[in-house]
């Protein structure tokens, strides 16, 4: 008889691992959504039209905006270097390793700002261990580590070793106890990190080459960051002077632009990505569902790839058209600008500003400040507004068919009597999986239902509210008493029948408001 079982099964309701993975994916999706949202907010679909129509204004503004935007990113990197350099002095851990730890903390749902505090507490615990304090001794004994062992390691390796040993403890109660003995109350917050042995390695992978660059240049970045703070006033002076000349002409345009909320496009894109990622994640519940979602996810990626390529091309064209510089050349120029000699950098910056002003006057000689010709600005503003409105409307149309299916699936979920979308998801996935297997049907035909329901969490109705167009019929916005509403509509009691049922519209106030704003803008532009 064999010593090990040849066929075995473990049955449990514990889905901790599943939930942990889901949480990580959600965090990533939110971050990705926000990033894309910001990118679209700046670019949007109408960037090209905007720039072409506003050539006179853009000739002056775009180079400045582009340079300032790039500077802002550069300054962010320098500030990060400065912050890590200060933290390195506080903890003795190399700047590159600190960046990895920050990322690992963020992945585990803890703020990256807590790295310094946690490391200091950890070092105090090691010191207490050396002094023979009983609590620390008990905790480190449980991990099989002595003071001498730890002394031989660098600070970052001390942390890594302890993290690995805590992760290897099987009993979760003991794990929590040891973590809190060593790291104090923040040990409890870090349990997610401690229960995952590979967390630091993954964080290091995602940070990539940044860690090395920061390790080498953190001190230099710190110096530059501190000195750059002094240049803010110089730049501010320039903008004050510029604003006094063009303010009256720009006010009308800015008023119009202010009423356009482009962040909604970004939010829509972010939501769509998160929906697909969640759908993919949930697909783990069944092999067939996973197969279907692979196809759906691939389509989503292709869709976003195409959109991003469009946006990047539009930005690039806009910069090229206005700056009259090759992008690489501009990057090289910026790299050159931030030289080791800070005095020289400041001088170069001054020269750049002068150069830009000269360039603007050269481009538009007939409208040199302060006698600014506004004849083209009104027309340009109309064109911009129209372009943005078209872009927004187009975005809605593209999403429409899919959204209708989502609304129907949501209705189905609600009709089955579930408060939580997750329950409905599980039931529908299981049902779809078994039906398809039994009938030997095409799994890809299940994508709309499965993919859509997967994305429905508690916040989905509000997400839909942000992007649905109330003027379209056939959409259902469900609220708190959807079950009775559906019964009032005479809904059949099987999910598959819902697809052929016409649902009524119940617009959310947020949609109505956004639609009114758009209609108002369109009316003004047409009028």
């Amino acid at each position, binding site marked *: *008889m*064999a010593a*090990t*079982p*040849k*066929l*075995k*099964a*473990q*049955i*449990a*309701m*514990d*889905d*901790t691992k599943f939930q942990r993975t889901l949480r990580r994916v959600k965090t990533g999706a939110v971050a990705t959504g926000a990033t894309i949202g910001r990118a679209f907010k700046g670019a949007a679909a109408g960037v090209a039209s905007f720039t072409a129509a506003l050539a006179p204004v853009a000739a002056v503004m775009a180079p400045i905006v582009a340079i300032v935007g790039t500077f802002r990113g550069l300054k962010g990197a320098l500030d990060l270097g400065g912050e890590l350099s200060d933290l390195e002095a506080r903890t003795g851990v190399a700047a590159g390793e600190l960046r990895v730890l920050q990322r690992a903390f963020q992945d585990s749902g803890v703020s990256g700002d807590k790295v310094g505090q946690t490391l200091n507490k950890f070092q105090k615990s090691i010191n207490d261990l050396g002094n023979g304090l009983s609590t620390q001794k008990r905790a480190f004994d449980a991990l099989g580590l002595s003071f001498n062992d730890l002394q031989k390691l660098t600070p970052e390796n001390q942390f890594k070793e302890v993290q690995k040993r805590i992760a290897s403890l099987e*009993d*979760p*109660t003991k794990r929590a106890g040891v973590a809190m003995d060593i790291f104090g109350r923040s040990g409890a917050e870090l349990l997610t990190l401690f229960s995952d042995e590979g967390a630091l390695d993954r964080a290091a992978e995602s940070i990539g080459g940044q860690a090395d660059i920061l390790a080498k240049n953190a001190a230099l970045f710190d110096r530059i960051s501190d000195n750059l703070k002094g240049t803010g006033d110089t730049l501010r002076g320039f903008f004050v002077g510029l604003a006094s000349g063009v303010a009256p002409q720009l006010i009308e345009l800015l008023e119009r632009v202010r009423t356009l909320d482009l962040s909604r496009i970004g939010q829509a894109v972010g939501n769509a990505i998160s929906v697909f990622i969640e759908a993919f994640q949930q697909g*783990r*519940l*069944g092999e067939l569902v996973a197969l279907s979602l692979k196809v759906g996810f691939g389509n989503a990626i292709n869709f976003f790839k195409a959109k991003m390529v469009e946006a990047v091309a539009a930005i690039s064209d806009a910069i090229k058209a206005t700056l009259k510089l090759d992008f690489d050349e501009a990057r090289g120029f910026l790299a050159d600008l931030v030289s080791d000699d800070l005095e020289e950098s400041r001088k170069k910056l001054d020269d750049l500003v002068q150069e830009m002003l000269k360039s603007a006057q050269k481009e538009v000689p007939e409208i040199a400040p302060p006698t600014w010709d506004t004849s083209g600005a009104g027309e340009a503003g109309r064109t911009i507004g129209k372009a943005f409105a078209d872009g927004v409307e187009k975005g809605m149309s593209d999403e429409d068919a899919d959204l209708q299916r989502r609304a129907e699936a949501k209705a189905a979920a609600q009709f*089955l*009597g*579930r408060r939580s979308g997750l*329950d409905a998801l*599980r*039931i529908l*996935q*299981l*049902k779809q*999986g*078994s039906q398809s297997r039994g009938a030997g049907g095409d799994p890809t035909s299940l994508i709309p239902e499965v993919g859509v329901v997967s994305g429905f969490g508690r916040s989905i109705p509000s997400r839909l509210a942000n992007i649905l167009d109330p003027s379209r019929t056939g959409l259902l916005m469900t609220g708190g*008493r959807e*079950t*009775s509403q559906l*019964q*009032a509509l005479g809904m059949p*009691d099987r999910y598959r029948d819902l697809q052929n049922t016409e649902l009524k519209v119940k617009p959310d106030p947020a949609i109505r408001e956004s639609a009114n704003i758009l209609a108002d803008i369109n009316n003004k532009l047409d009028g």
Partner: protein
Amino acid sequence: MTPTMDIDTKELQAAMQIYSRATRKDEVEIVNRAVIVTLTGGKGVVGAIRRTKKAETRAIEDKLNSTGWSKTKPKLKWVLGAKKLAGSGRIASTYYKRNTKGGKKAGDIKTNNEWTARVAREGEKILRRRKASAAYLQAGWKKALVDGGWSTKGPAKKFKGRIGYGTRAVDRGSRPIFAEFGNYISYAAKPSIGAAIALQQALKAQARDMVKYAERKMGETARKYSAKR
């Protein structure tokens, strides 16, 4: 050595989550109940034991006579070939040559007819053994049910030894609640035997049944509290 095979229970896990919300039953009770129904079956669910079928004689013969088998176990093929072609001198003499030393016949076999009869008996024995293997697997599951305290009805007395094991789900405070069961029979994980498929099918059937039940219960609750009533 046959590798150990873990059966995927994610689908049942998801079903149990839904079931627990619909019924408010204790987690330990749900898990233990799931094991019993998965193995023995229940209303509307065919369990793994009943799904582990005895093989048909013809299927076993086909398998043993297939090319792959004959390459690794030629002797068995000859035995079965001899049974199928009872009285065939060629098959019998081949077996005879392979089982004699220096021209001396094995045992007390004197004639070709005796030899053929002997070969036929051997073939019958092999067939019986293979058919019994399904019963052996079923006995492994029954042993697991007894071992885990889910059932008192064990396998037939002829199946002895450690052929199955089970661990009942119990509430151990902060520790995770789970039940485990397994089959020690050496060929249990072999794809050709089909025991793994039977177990997987039973798990899926159990999951579907739980979801169906939970769905009905949730629907009842929803209708009960509906504003339209």
